[in-house]
């Protein structure tokens, strides 16, 4: 499985009043009403369904899009659904100023690219603008400028490149 390290796509900017939204929790990303779903392919339709202003995201997002949010994206519960719903829609990467700890692990383990953009100014990336992003160096370019995102950690890069935790472990961990 080859995974791209250079991504380019249209960005959904999760903002309110011109500011990136902080603390988007897993119930806003994937509401607990749909937790009994076990098929990842069925999860996409609920993505951001409980985030005010973005409840039509699932019907309007296209495969190859990216998502951008503020601090502490994915705080709250441990549900993998909140990661898998984006994978199911074909979202390439989630960018945020910071992520909830469990969410970060879940995304890494599922092979969804997470990009930390601490200090990214509001407004640098406009809604539905196209960005180019290098996951290894963190270099991000956009119409109005550029930004240096945090490069992926080694473990997160290796798992991403392998396509997920179990795939990664097959190459690394003799017990798996």
């Amino acid at each position, binding site marked *: 499985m080859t995974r791209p390290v250079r991504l380019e796509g249209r960005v959904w900017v999760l903002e309110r009043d011109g500011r990136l939204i*902080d*603390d988007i*929790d897993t*119930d*806003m990303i994937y*509401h*607990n009403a749909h*937790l*009994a*779903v*076990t098929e990842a392919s069925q999860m996409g339709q609920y993505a951001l369904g*409980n985030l*005010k202003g973005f409840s039509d995201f699932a019907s309007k997002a296209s495969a190859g899009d990216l998502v951008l949010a503020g*601090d*502490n994206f994915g*705080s*709250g*519960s*441990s*549900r*993998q659904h909140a*990661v898998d719903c984006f994978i199911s829609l074909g979202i390439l990467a989630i960018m945020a100023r*910071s992520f*909830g*700890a*469990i969410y970060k*692990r*879940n995304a890494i*383990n*599922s092979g969804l690219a997470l990009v930390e953009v601490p200090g990214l100014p509001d407004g640098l990336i406009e809604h539905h603008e196209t960005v180019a992003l290098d996951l290894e160096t963190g270099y991000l370019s956009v119409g109005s400028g550029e930004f240096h995102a945090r490069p992926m*950690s*080694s*473990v997160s890069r290796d798992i991403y490149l392998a396509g*997920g*935790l*179990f795939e990664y*472990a097959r190459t690394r*961990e003799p*017990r*798996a």
Partner: protein
Amino acid sequence: MGRTMIEKMLGSHGGGDCGPGDIIWLEVDNRTARDFAGANVVANLEQYGGEKPIEDPGKTFFTFDCNVPANTIPYANNQHRIRMFARKHGLRVYDVDYGIGSHVLIEEKLAGPGSTTVGTDSHLNIMGAVGAFGQGMGDLDIAFTFKTGTTWFEVPPSVRIDLTGTPSSDEVEAKDLALLLLGRFRGHELLGRSVEIYGDWVERASLEDCITVASQATEMGAIIALFPPNASVLGHFGMSREEAVYADPDASYQATYEVGISELEPLVACPPGPTNVRPVSGFTEPVPVDSVFLGSCTNGTLQDMELAARLLEGRKVHPGVMLRVVPATRKVWGEMLRRGLLDIIFEAGGILSNPGCGGCAAGQIGMTGRGEVQISTSNRNFTGKQGDGDTYLAGVGTAVASAVLGRLASVHDLQAKGGRR
């Protein structure tokens, strides 16, 4: 250089001489999954597990607590899929009658000081209450630990909080301290940190007090809030200090915060989230209350239920207010039965449910409707989490006082007004 609590615990579980930022392969003592996400764990193991999907059946458990017994067909299907898998592989299921998995693990002394536990419950870092490592993880991670007994983990930076002073008000509870910390640090300052909590309060705290504070580490954004095991915690496990894990005196912390608690008073977290904290006394307009939820992994212990019953004895819930009570575990429920607490809560007009996660996960005992104001002793009031209504997080005393008076109120207000008898 000395080491912090988490560095020692991770170090003795595969990390060796590890420090902040190191990626280790963590050896996991207890590998658990709930009815929530448990079926996804099973699905992952069926896909990736191969011939031997369980590394050690003696260390691997399912705990059903989200939707117990299942009140939707998909949950029922998921639970039964788990049971069939568990039977096939000889795994113990703490089934729908047991209560909240994290509390059962502590009650059954499976997760003692210094141990490591992972599971699909994002509040599994509650193990910090007993000076143990615990971490909620997604279903892929948990499936991986079921199969291998390990997973990767990045050693977090450690910070310490020194609590100074003693609350002068006797109506202050552990929950008020948790809310104080949430309001002070918000969700960001402790993000990704292991937090050690020290002070006179910690030395005197009951196991239940520690559970309440540790359970809110997730909402603080912290990896875990660790309490160095005190006499109460060691007593529960029948352990000596030598057997528990403490930080070295010269351990190094990324930051040390001093938090004064002598002025602490009853607090609430207002919508839209757990860090939006205000004192109960600070509202100029009364906040009419429609429903009250008492329970959850934060405030569902016997100590919480005893406090509730003491305040409700001889009083009645305000007309039109729903008081819903969900003990954390079957064991707590049994003690409430034997000690007459169920009777007191029933006579006061409360609705009592079987043990479990109550309103938190799948609305086992009801959700809120649009415009409804709920006072809840649980740990999350994110928009939409517990329904379309507005949820305020509070301690047991505030929740009960509000149920009796029909408006947001403290124990002090309750004692002043007496409530409806």
